[in-house]
């Protein structure tokens, strides 16, 4: 009985701590402690054309769920459009102070989509999504956090039906590739290396 209690008390936190991701923030992060973030539209460096529309909503959502007040894409895009500043490449080059003035945010998240592809090799396919991200203090432009990751996942290719089934499954998959779940997971993994923020995520 005592052994069981010990295992219950000591073992479970140990299990969870093994899963805790490493925090990648700079020393300035602790000093400046951002609470609100403007997620800039991701800059697409891949050949795919619809990356912005697909990735912007979940980049914003994942960061917000991490406990930071994130300016919604609708609001950000509307203000950018009103100012004829829709090109993410140009936005990424603007001094961060501009965003602090207009949006009143503490920090700015810049994202480059570096990989958005699927590889199809005979009977299997993999989806690869890569992001380069940096979080900057909006007032000074000081780097607060930086990360770069490519996530590759081999989705279920539906190999039922032997070799022919596997071939068909992989071919179908290559044609209609669900990038969003992989991209979402990659963003989630990356944001897990930022300390949990203090803004209420949901208080129904």
């Amino acid at each position, binding site marked *: 009985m005592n052994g069981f209690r010990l295992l219950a008390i000591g073992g479970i936190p140990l299990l969870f701590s093994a899963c805790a991701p490493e925090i990648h923030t700079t020393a300035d992060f602790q000093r400046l402690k951002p609470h609100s973030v403007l997620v800039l539209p991701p800059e697409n460096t891949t050949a795919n054309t619809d990356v912005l529309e697909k990735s*912007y909503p979940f980049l914003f959502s994942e960061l917000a769920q991490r406990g930071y007040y994130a300016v919604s894409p609708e609001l950000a895009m509307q203000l950018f459009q009103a*100012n004829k500043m829709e090109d993410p490449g140009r936005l990424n080059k603007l001094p961060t102070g501009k965003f602090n003035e207009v949006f009143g945010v503490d920090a700015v998240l810049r994202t480059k989509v570096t990989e958005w592809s699927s590889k199809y090799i005979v009977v299997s396919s993999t989806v690869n999504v890569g992001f380069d991200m940096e979080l900057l203090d909006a007032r000074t432009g000081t780097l607060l956090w930086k990360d770069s990751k490519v996530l590759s996942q081999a989705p279920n290719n539906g190999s039922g039906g032997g070799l022919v089934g596997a071939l068909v499954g992989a071919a179908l998959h290559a044609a209609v590739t669900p990038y969003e779940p992989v991209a979402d997971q990659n963003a989630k993994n990356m944001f897990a290396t930022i300390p949990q923020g203090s803004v209420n995520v949901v208080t129904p």
Partner: protein
Amino acid sequence: MKRQFLSAFPPLILAGCAVTPWPHYEAAVRCHMDGKKQECDGDYLKAIEIGPRTQGLHASYGVHLLLEGRRDEALKEFAIEKANYPGFAPKGIDQLALGTANPASAGSDSISRTETSPR
């Protein structure tokens, strides 16, 4: 003891499955960005129903309503956002609400603003 230990787990497991507004909120944002306009209302409203104080949600819906020409409703949503998150609601809300988001600086590498002092 063993039974007590095991009975503690179902609530933990269920907590992981708690309904959150985020899937609907994200779907609404995606719908809005896809330009589907009126089709998006359902997801915004469902997200508000599940988490009426979700950060940014009322501001998002307000922008959507404003672009739909439903200005009075939009202003109400902006006011709710500001009341829920007085220290965080973006300044840009005021620009949109006042209709001053339009730029004198079109084409230059700057963004127009109504307020100049940093927070």
